[in-house]
């Protein structure tokens, strides 16, 4: 077994540390060392995007990166979206528009959409489809997801937060 490395990174605004073997993927570090199970493992082959997190603000697949590579970087997971005032507008929009059925792809989908709206607050439908093209949903056929993004976008999904309590 290779020697463990000590890694330290900022996760959802808080400094987190741990000792990991170099072969431990970022997604496993987040889920198993930090207990942040909102980030999902689905295909585990870099195809589906269920494990999407933000790395220094860019959406990446955390199953295709080692935790040691993320040392010193800034990570945001789906747990970082809601705050004490309630859910994030993208999460609200998914509730309002039924943007999920089984919900397994949802955390990754939402993180991709978060990055998309940060760069382009009012995307067209083709831009939304392109923006989520790294995330696979097997339930919705994407129609309701796209409506959710459009709702979040029309309500200024970047900054506005609702009064709903985080659950």
């Amino acid at each position, binding site marked *: *077994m*290779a*020697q463990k*490395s000590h890694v330290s990174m900022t996760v959802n605004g808080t400094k987190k540390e741990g000792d990991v*073997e*170099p*072969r*431990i*993927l970022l997604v*496993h570090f987040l889920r198993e060392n930090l207990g942040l199970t909102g980030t999902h493992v689905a295909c*585990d*082959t*870099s*195809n589906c*995007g269920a494990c*999407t997190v933000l*790395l220094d603000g*860019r*959406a*990446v*697949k955390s199953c*295709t*990166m*080692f935790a*040691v*590579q993320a040392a010193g970087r800034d990570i945001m997971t789906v747990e970082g979206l809601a705050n004490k005032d309630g859910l994030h507008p993208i999460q609200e929009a998914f509730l309002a528009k039924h943007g999920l059925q089984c919900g397994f792809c949802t955390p990754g989908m939402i993180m*991709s959409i978060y990055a998309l709206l940060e760069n382009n607050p009012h995307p067209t439908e083709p831009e939304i489809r*392109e*923006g989520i*093209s*790294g*995330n696979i949903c097997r339930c919705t056929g994407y129609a309701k997801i796209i409506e959710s993004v459009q709702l979040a976008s029309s309500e200024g999904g970047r900054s506005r937060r609702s009064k709903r309590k985080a659950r």
Partner: protein
Amino acid sequence: MIPSSFDYVSPKSLKEAVGLLESKGEGAKIIAGGQSLIPLMKLRLASPSVLIDLGRIPGLNYLREEAGALRIGAMTRMSDVAASEMLRKKYPIIQDAAKVIADPLIRNLGTMGGNVSHGDPTNDMPAVMLALGADFFALGPSGERTIGVRDFFLDAFSVALEHNEILTEIRVPTTPPRSGGSYLKIEQKVADFATAGVAVQITLSKVGQCETVGIGLTAVGPKAIEAKDAEDSLVGVRPTDTASVRKAAQLAADASDPASDIRGTADYKRSLVKLLVTRGVKVAYARSQGRASS
């Protein structure tokens, strides 16, 4: 899926990285964006004993025009290539390819250097670099050397880098006036590897004939293929001469060497090459005239 065990080192300079390649031996492997390597490691098709991460070496992520060339740092992320305004205006062929590589999430980590030095015949940038006549800069223990694109791709997953060399930069000659290019790819679904891809780059003379022509093919052979006969057949020809373009397209299809697989039969892929060369010349021509054709 968990890869087999390895040691991880993250050097702070290229020189240190080259030294590590030497001292750690044949089992050591460079990791750039990791978007091809990590999936291979998870499947245990690759099991390096040491990973040398280029991610913490400063100054390898850039796109700039300088001294008659476009210089692309090896660690330049594909998403930065896809978003570059300068590339959109002056080297649209590179941007065409960047936009159809994998998906936005993979492009946020995948690098230009990785895409060419992995040597995967289904990667898109090798054909583009063949069409553009790029040069590759590699650093080794005895210093830097230049490898021309025609000498770079050796076979499937094999390129002209020695074990102790690291690709540092891709240099593309500045395109002259009246130049245009295009990269077209057929894929079964978004983020799939190419069923076939074709890169076309042309420069026209003042009277509107092709002066230089570059044609590169993706995923239709054990490595990226330069369609030399097709290129030569178009020199001195107007890109609007449909009979000549059709002939060139056939020559490119003849130069391809595809295998029948899940994405289609060899015959089908050859017919795609023919189709994409014809379309690619049209797009390249429109762009050479300053028209933003897509």
